[in-house]
């Protein structure tokens, strides 16, 4: 856990909360950075994110060389990666909030508005809810079943069900976590999920995909 972890600083509102939680989970060398060179040297990468999909992707794109460095480090070098909330949604091909925005496209799929199937279903989906393993997923060793804090109006719909690591339920199934190879994305906020969230971060820090 002493290896360098890059926490990507592109103006996301939950940056400091994620930083605090990573430290509490046992990370000793967290570099809060948007510098592509530092990303290239990182052994683990965490991408936070809250707010709108479009604003977050614009924030990432605005930093020259950052997306390229992330792609090289995560997709080619296989460094363990964790995306949180909108940081997870950015893994998708595109989001439809405030017009279509292209995402990173690492896990094919679309980010759509949560449908209110019933007047009692409130959007944003706000509060503690289940994190339940998805069937047929073998990359879910990081995700334990439990309760985590969610806060979102849009949700990730992956093209391929095999990329779904965990589900939750809010007027129908919503994806709680996606995983593929060395990439993990969680819709909920581990940094706000008390013991459950800190334990997940600790497992991520030890993860050897």
């Amino acid at each position: 856990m002493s290896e360098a972890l890059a926490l990507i600083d592109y103006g996301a509102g939950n940056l400091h909360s994620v930083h605090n939680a990573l430290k509490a989970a046992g990370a000793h060398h967290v570099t809060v950075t948007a510098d592509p060179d530092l990303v290239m040297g990182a052994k683990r990468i965490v991408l936070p994110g809250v707010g709108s999909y479009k604003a977050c992707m614009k924030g990432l794109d605005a930093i020259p060389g950052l997306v390229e460095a992330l792609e090289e480090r995560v997709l080619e070098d296989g460094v363990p990666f964790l995306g949180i909330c909108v940081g997870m949604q950015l893994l998708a091909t595109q989001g439809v909030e405030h017009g279509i925005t292209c995402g990173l496209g690492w896990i094919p799929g679309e980010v759509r508005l949560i449908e209110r199937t019933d007047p009692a279903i409130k959007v944003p989906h706000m509060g503690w809810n289940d994190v339940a393993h998805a069937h047929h997923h073998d990359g879910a060793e990081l995700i334990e079943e439990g309760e985590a804090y969610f806060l979102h109006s849009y949700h990730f719909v992956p093209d391929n069900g095999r990329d779904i690591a965990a589900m939750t339920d809010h007027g129908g199934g919503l994806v709680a976590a996606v995983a593929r190879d060395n990439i993990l994305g969680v819709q909920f906020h581990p940094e706000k999920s008390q013991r459950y969230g800190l334990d997940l971060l600790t497992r991520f820090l030890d993860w050897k995909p």
Partner: protein
Amino acid sequence: MTVRIRVIPCLDVADGRVVKGVNFVDLKDAGDPVEQAQAYDAAGADELCFLDISASHEGRGTLLDIVRRTAEVCFMPVTVGGGVRTVDDARALLLAGADKVAVNSAAVSRPEVVNEIAEKMGSQCCVASIDARRVAEGKWEIFTHGGRKPTGIDALEHAVKLAELGAGELLVTSMDGDGTKAGYDLALTRTIADAVSVPVVASGGVGTLDHLVEGVTQGHASAVLAASIFHFGTYTIAEAHAALRNAGLPARA
């Protein structure tokens, strides 16, 4: 299951100190908001609410420091309200570690501020506070200045408007009920909750665990806020969760 009903203790803070008396047994400094927050975090509160009632400008800087120190040691969602007037006020609190900011009187004089915060920071972090008093059967009016000053604004219309402007949550406080321990104004809570698509937090008047349950079953709230019943140790967060579960509602174990 589905999303859990949230139990939210609310701490009133002025000039960096918790205002209402608090009664946790093992606190070194019962007036320290950060220690209080940690105690509620450990007790399994679903969220925490800080309400800043500082009269002075100096108190604001202290509030940011409290939020920052709380975010270093508490890993639960924190809403901060009181004195949020502009996008910059909201941004400063969010960067300090708040997850949501509650806008109150600023949204009465200038509702667009809700839209500005939602556009810049996202609806998920923008809570609109609705402080209302009943003025006739089935009719409520927005009051400011701690419930003393009428505005002539219809509470339901105001609530619907702020939700349309992008508030991601409404904190509905009955100024008639506040401090009475007689229970929430259930008709007020329900009337607003049924009219909007965003979650509503019931607030003002809790004296018993049954009041929390009624806030959901009859008030149709998604979350229940209370202050003194938790601060004075009358009930624990765990007892509140158990009461909700015993009523057949989803709550954390």
